[in-house]
């Protein structure tokens, strides 16, 4: 594995890009198969892709424009100034300076569970929210690591990235759903537009059916994999800013071992947080179905940067089931 944060960051960017290509390929294949199965023509799917793509985009635009306000309200965050929490606001300013972006607005969530999130479509419209639990339990170095992670999400345009992937996955889901409904309610197969090539069309139809069932699940898995890659990227980018892997590592260990549950978080917002706030849910479904990588793995990657030994089995026990 890589031993500089530059190398780790490059690997993460490359992986997330490849994963997006996989989703695009999946969408194109599904569109092509459905189009061909219904119309017998190679370009038959383009119209359907266009329609559902547009629907998915419209749904996403609302989230893009109003999303950060909504998330902040739902999470019960209130804005704070330097007078309220000087250290927090100062740390945010410091990291923003290192990142070369304007200082984002800072919000506070009253909750003893230590966590944080960042929203914002680009660095000029960014907000960061942290819990009072995080401020109480972390020291300045650790706080810098967490803020660095969150600001890196903003700087790497992860919100937009997630939106792009969301639109692709949404289009796949819409298209597959429409196709399955049309097939089972509208009679089996529609070959009225067929221009010959009946055998091939039947094959395409069968493949389209299989893909329409599997693709949405697979796309969702890829979406989660992308989310995990961007989390690793945010960790590596945080180190690029603070040049201090120990701060972030200690923060991860503290947050991972903490037993408090973040009340304001739910499945809709869990992907935004520094560490997955839904602990019970995560104990049951780990690995592929998680928006965040396991904390033990995140710590081990940071240890690679400093040349330390990875966590021993005994240490990870305290962090298992908590991501």
């Amino acid at each position, binding site marked *: 594995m890589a031993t500089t944060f530059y190398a780790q960051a490059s690997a993460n960017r490359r992986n997330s890009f490849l994963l997006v290509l996989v989703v695009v390929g999946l969408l194109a294949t599904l569109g092509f198969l459905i189009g061909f199965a219904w119309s017998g023509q190679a370009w038959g799917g383009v119209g359907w892709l266009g329609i559902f793509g547009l629907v998915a985009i419209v749904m996403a635009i609302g989230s893009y424009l109003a999303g950060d306000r909504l998330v902040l309200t739902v999470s019960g965050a209130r804005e704070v100034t330097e007078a309220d929490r*000087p*250290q927090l606001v*100062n*740390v945010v*300013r*410091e*990291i923003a*300076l*290192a*990142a*070369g972006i304007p200082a984002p607005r800072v919000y506070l969530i009253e909750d003893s569970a230590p966590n944080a999130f960042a929203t914002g479509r680009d660095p000029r419209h960014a907000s960061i929210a942290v819990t009072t639990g995080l401020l109480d339990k972390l020291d*300045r170095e650790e706080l810098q690591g967490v803020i660095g992670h969150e600001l890196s999400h903003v700087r790497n345009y992860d919100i937009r990235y997630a939106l792009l992937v969301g639109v692709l996955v949404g289009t796949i889901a819409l298209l597959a759903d429409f196709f399955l409904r049309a097939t089972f309610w509208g009679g089996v197969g529609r070959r009225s537009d067929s221009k010959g090539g009946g055998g091939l069309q039947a094959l395409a139809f069968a493949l389209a059916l299989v893909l329409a069932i599997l693709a949405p699940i697979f796309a969702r898995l890829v979406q989660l994999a992308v989310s995990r890659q961007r989390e690793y990227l945010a960790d590596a980018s945080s180190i690029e*800013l603070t*040049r201090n892997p120990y701060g972030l590592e200690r923060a991860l260990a503290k947050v991972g071992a903490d037993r408090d549950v973040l009340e304001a978080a739910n499945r809709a917002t869990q992907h935004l947080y520094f560490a997955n706030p839904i602990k019970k849910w995560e104990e049951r479904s780990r690995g592929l179905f998680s928006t965040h990588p396991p904390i033990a793995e995140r710590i081990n990657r940071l240890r690679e940067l400093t040349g330390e030994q990875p966590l021993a089995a005994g240490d990870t026990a305290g962090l298992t089931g908590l991501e």
Partner: protein
Amino acid sequence: MDPAISLLVIVVIVVLVLVVGVLLYNGLVTKRNRVDEAVGQIEVQLKRRHDLVPNLVAAVRDYMGFEQDVLTRVTEARASAVAAGATGAVTRDQIVAENALTGALRSLFAVAENYPALKANENVLALQEQLTTTENQISFARQHYNASVNNYNTTVQTFPSLVIAGPFGFIRREFFDAEPEADAVPAVALR
């Protein structure tokens, strides 16, 4: 081949080359400006520290009356740093003077550990936080400067920007290189 088509092809190629050239030039300008902006950021933070120091000295003087030498060192180091930075340009003298001020401040805070009443004073705590964040911002600003210089230098030195850089006068910039501290270890008087 038909001469008209040959001409068209040549025109298209020339236009493409010009467009690429313009894009590369703009990229170089943007990166160079970021470097200059980063220099300005460092200066802003250094000046902020200059302004905070008198407040700090005044606040602690009442408690630390016996530590005149430490306080005097801080005040003098600040004056030297202000003088060294007066020209506005980043010079070796300025860097040395600023590092001396950092050392003097560290001595002050090390000595302040001996005065519990001082540490409880709200005013002093607030100032300490201000100075801590300013020190952090100075180092982050310098780090960002180095990152910007790295980005700019790499662009100037690699193909294809390198073709544009030479003729239009884009040259490499120097990294910020911290001079060794003027004072090595803060001296703490043990009682």
